[in-house]
């Protein structure tokens, strides 16, 4: 186990334990439904449940989500038969990558840290560079990527079609045999159900401050202030505006982010603003996994980035005090939905 993975796992476990202790611990929610599509929306998110936000060509249903879940955890969707989607989007780490960069077939390493898949039902652009405009479009690309799963969708379909139980599941979900489209659609359906909505912050927005104390409130106020300016990219509620900004992390190198897609010099170093639910569990941070802890993240922003000339003009030194940094950290930790990591619905 890598050092990243060990420390990230420890942090996740600690957050779980701490969330269950003490008088400030959130009250445990009632036993959740086992239905994947029966998830409350996170507080402050745009209108629409995960079902309502599913596209007309792939309406979200329980059979589709369950089929997608099975595919998500199935390493047969890789050329070598040992890499599943879940290898890089690990449930224990809020469906994010606990190593600095992701590892695919033949132990090939990528250049980016796989982002968390939480709450993507409310996003409109996908991947760090936004090259996919729907979950359905996104779902097939890692399977075909030579350094990730390296399997053509055609071959992936052949493999699942050889399994009678899959054929039956596709029939239930899409009333048709497995196809490249329905395989992508099913995966997208499952990802659409990955929802983090019960953090202390969510409950705070719903009027319950039992787990959102003074430090968290000071941190929230600072987060939404012009001094820290976090809200410019991470607005209240959704905590991402789904935009692309150079946040001061990129400092040269081949992975220019959105510029790969657009070819425009002004897009050099721009990467998608991720959501922050369960951010405590998704270390390391940034597109390249270069920041190991939330403290490192705060410190980088406090410095005003790494000095790349293309850094967004809003990224400037913040002059945060030690107390302010601690409050910001408390707020970020309050974004952890403690039920997510133990939610049986997301177990393979």
């Amino acid at each position: 186990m890598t050092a990243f993975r060990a420390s990230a796992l420890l942090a996740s476990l600690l957050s779980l334990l701490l969330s269950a202790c003490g008088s400030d611990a959130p009250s445990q929610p009632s036993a959740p439904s086992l239905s994947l599509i029966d998830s409350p929306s996170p507080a402050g998110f745009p209108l629409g449940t995960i079902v309502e936000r599913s596209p007309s060509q792939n309406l979200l249903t329980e059979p589709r989500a369950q089929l997608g879940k099975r595919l998500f955890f199935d390493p047969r969707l890789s050329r070598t038969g040992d890499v599943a989607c879940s290898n890089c989007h690990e449930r224990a780490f809020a469906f994010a990558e606990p190593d600095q960069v992701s590892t695919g077939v033949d132990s090939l390493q990528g250049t980016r840290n796989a982002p968390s898949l939480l709450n993507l039902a409310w996003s409109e652009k996908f991947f760090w560079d936004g090259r996919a405009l729907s979950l359905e479009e996104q779902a097939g690309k890692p399977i075909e990527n030579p350094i990730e799963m390296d399997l053509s969708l055609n071959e992936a379909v052949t493999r699942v079609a050889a399994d009678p139980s899959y054929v039956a599941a596709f029939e239930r979900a899409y009333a048709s045999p497995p196809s490249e489209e329905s395989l992508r659609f099913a995966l997208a359906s499952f990802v659409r159900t990955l929802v983090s909505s019960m953090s202390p912050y969510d409950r705070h927005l719903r009027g319950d401050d039992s787990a959102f104390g003074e430090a968290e409130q000071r941190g929230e106020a600072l987060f939404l202030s012009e001094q820290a300016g976090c809200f410019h990219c991470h607005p209240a509620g959704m905590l991402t505006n789904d935009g692309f900004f150079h946040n001061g992390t990129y400092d040269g190198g081949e992975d220019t982010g959105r510029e790969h897609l657009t070819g425009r010099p002004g897009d050099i170093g721009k990467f998608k603003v991720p959501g922050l639910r369960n951010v405590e569990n998704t270390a390391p941070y940034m597109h390249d996994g270069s920041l190991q802890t939330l403290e490192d993240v705060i410190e980088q922003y406090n410095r005003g980035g790494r000095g790349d000339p293309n850094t967004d003009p809003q990224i400037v030194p913040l002059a945060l005090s030690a107390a302010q940094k601690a409050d910001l950290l408390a707020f970020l930790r309050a974004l952890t939905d403690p039920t997510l990591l133990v939610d049986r619905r997301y177990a393979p």
Partner: protein
Amino acid sequence: MVGLLFLAMGSGGCGTTSDEPMHGASGSSNNGAGSGGAAGSLVNNGGTSAAMGGAAGVADTVAGGAGGAAAECPELPVARRSAGTVLELPIHPSLQGKPLNFAEPNPLSNGGSLTPLDIRFYISQVALLRPSAELVRVDLVTADGALAPYGVHLYSADDVASNTLRVLAPPGDYVGIQFVMGLTLPCNQRSPDASKAPLSATSQMSWPHTGFLFLRYQGRSESPGSAGMGGAGPGGSGGSGGAEAAAGGGLGGASADFPAVIHMGGSLVQDLAPMVRVLGSFSIPADGPYSKSMRFVLDEVFKGALKEADLTGFMGPPGAEVVLGEHLRRNMADLHPFSFEQ
């Protein structure tokens, strides 16, 4: 270049008390009330666009004046008409008389360059101007002909699909167009989490302070012969500095003439989005769509942001970019941010 008219009806809200001074306009009569309102006569001064303070509810006649903002901001507006011709208004940013290419370094007359990184603004309450001075209110529609949600259009230079404004208009002869550059009060009061695009958080315009931003600009300028970021002015992020100081105050990539960041917003209790008029003759046929391109003149935006305005009554949050935005909003009556292309 088509005609320009400036009618400044006061930068205060319609039907509300405003601390802001009324702005007069040469060549026009201004009979707006002290509390703001869109009254006055139509005069063609041979210019481009007119900016009128206050997002008054658009009256069907110019002389109708301020009637208050729309009572609500429904996701699905009530259609004003069931038929018409689609008027397409492609919007092209320009600077120093030349097209401004988004996310690319644009050469400047001083030998430097400017790379716009974000240009977005709301447009709502669109009306067409007849030669008789009658205002014809029209519905914003999407590319597929549906009513635009909330009656609002979000222009984003990064989103090609949003670069064209579309309205459903009666055929006929017109001498201009009028719209609110921003959101009316009811729309500005909407919560992003109770809204869909373009009033959700993904608009990148939601703001924790006073509703939504009406305009968001970010860019990087480089002086001739410089390497890396443009010079930063006085440091700090306080909001009390003058406009020119704010241009570089703590914001990287700024220079004296080209602010790095401008955030123009409004208020949750007043209708403060500026109204803009763009004059120029055109005839909409019965069969469409009919297209008439507009320029978004960044020179005017920078000019307005950098020009000192009386900020009496401004209770906005601190931040250099917010101050610049408020200068821009209060100066809008003197600016011509839009013009028709020939």
